[in-house]
């Protein structure tokens, strides 16, 4: 399964993990890869942790839609950290947001690697809270390399192009968020 990458993105409702996942897999699909994405949904999601399960493969069709263990697990809230412990094993890179208070005790002990990124802080102080999820997207593609930055930008353009047309500054903001997200992971993998 060398070329299959399994990604779990988890956060609170409103943090935009599902839209990040959606853009990510669409970018992968556009690159000609096989991709599969399934959210948790319905009663499960209402008031709970929102999780996006993504799988990207270079060529072959993907097996079961959900997986037991992820290659990359990204958790963006304290509840998400606890909920995602089940998707971690010795091959997992676990990424969390450093601004989550009291996270240390809950972080998985069995992961290949665990590190924090200050995405919430960067969004708030450097960019804009609304592009928090795009920072996460940047971090995800840098961590997984399932799509190229160019393809990610194209996917953003496809998704938000109509908004960018009205406000070109928004495009710039999103692109910067994507790049900043990639920087946060740089050198940590």
């Amino acid at each position: 399964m060398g070329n299959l990458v399994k990604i779990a993105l988890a956060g609170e409702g409103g943090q935009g993990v599902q839209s990040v996942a959606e853009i990510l897999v669409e970018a992968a699909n556009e690159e000609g890869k096989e991709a599969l994405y399934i959210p948790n949904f319905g009663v499960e999601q209402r008031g709970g942790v929102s999780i996006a399960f993504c799988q990207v493969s270079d060529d072959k069709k993907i097996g079961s839609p959900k997986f037991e263990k992820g290659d990359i697990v990204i958790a963006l809230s304290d509840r998400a950290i606890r909920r995602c412990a089940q998707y971690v094993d010795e091959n997992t890179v676990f990424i969390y947001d450093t601004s989550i208070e009291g996270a240390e005790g809950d972080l998985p002990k069995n992961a290949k690697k665990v590190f924090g990124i200050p995405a919430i802080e960067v969004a708030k102080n450097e960019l804009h809270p609304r592009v928090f999820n795009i920072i996460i997207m940047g971090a995800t593609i840098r961590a997984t390399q399932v799509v190229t930055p160019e393809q990610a930008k194209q996917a953003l353009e496809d998704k938000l192009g109509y908004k960018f047309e009205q406000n070109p500054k928004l495009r710039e903001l999103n692109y910067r968020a994507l790049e900043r997200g990639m920087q946060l992971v740089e050198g940590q993998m």
Partner: protein
Amino acid sequence: MADKPIQGEKRMFVTGNEAVAYAALAANVDIMYGYPITPQNEIMHYFTRLAPKFDKPFLQTEDEISAGFTTVGGVMSGKRSFTATAGPGNTLMQESMSMAEMMRIPTVVVIMQRGGPSTATVIYSQQEVTMTCYGANGEGIRVVYSTCNHQELYDYTIKSFNTAWKYRIPTFVLGDGYQAKMRESLTMYDPEARGIKMVDTYPLVGLPGSPGVDRDPAHLRNTYNTEEELYEVVSNLVKDYEAVAPEIVESESFDCDDAEVVVLAHGVVSRAAVEAVRELRKAGIKAGHFRPITLRPFPDKELKAVANQAKKLLVVESAQGQFAKLVHHSLYGDSTPMEYIFKPGLGITSDEIINKVKAML
């Protein structure tokens, strides 16, 4: 008015629900009836967005009883009609489907299985197998296609209209919450461009001419007065069904020829089985996979041939043995040892299957 929902061929990256809505329109469906229930809602959502461009109506009914019976009415009027439901909605729809069985009404119903029994989860299961195949007070005179990916959801939604109308048997596409909600790629196409001719529909009531003058009226009933009368009717239903079953039945097998363990699974679980068999083969373990695509009629002959060759069988499903019952029935008299992974309402991964197969060797 737009020309066709899909021109030629088009690679799409969508949810299963969206694939079904497109497929129904590509199949030139005339009308959809429906009632909201998760996880099939987006079939209606996409249908109601797309269908008006092709002048195709949608009726939102008061419940699934009504959605089933309005679909029956639409079909009887001669229109290619369908509905979609899940879980408790499937339960309610069994009433209308028993009428469809009795009167050979070519309804099409897409089921996106959710957890059961009762309200359970809106997420996923394979627990609607018994109900979809044999629900209501009948004999299971139905065709049930169990799909495993978006391509099949699209292909078999189109095909279900043709099966229903060609044979006049109520036909079901049995998906699940995973297939409904996940996104993956598929190729959508205009059936005609692939040489697939949609079977013509025709009215059972509202026929041309003057009833009682230049033709007899169509008097269609599902009630009978005597045991003997009913026996004859049902015997004929069964006889007709059995006669066409070999034409309808579909299955798939993968690496079964020399397999020591054959994994039996259907629907989305089959994906995990294929993955597991690939990995096991890489590790030098002789595993295979057999998968019925039609759960009704069941591919008895094909499964028996596989079972005869295999040393052991492993039945895997997201239910407590509903699929295994179909397998048992099919393999009655066969002595190949059989083991099980039953996970009612829970997804199954290739790793679980791999570990189990290894333990069986």
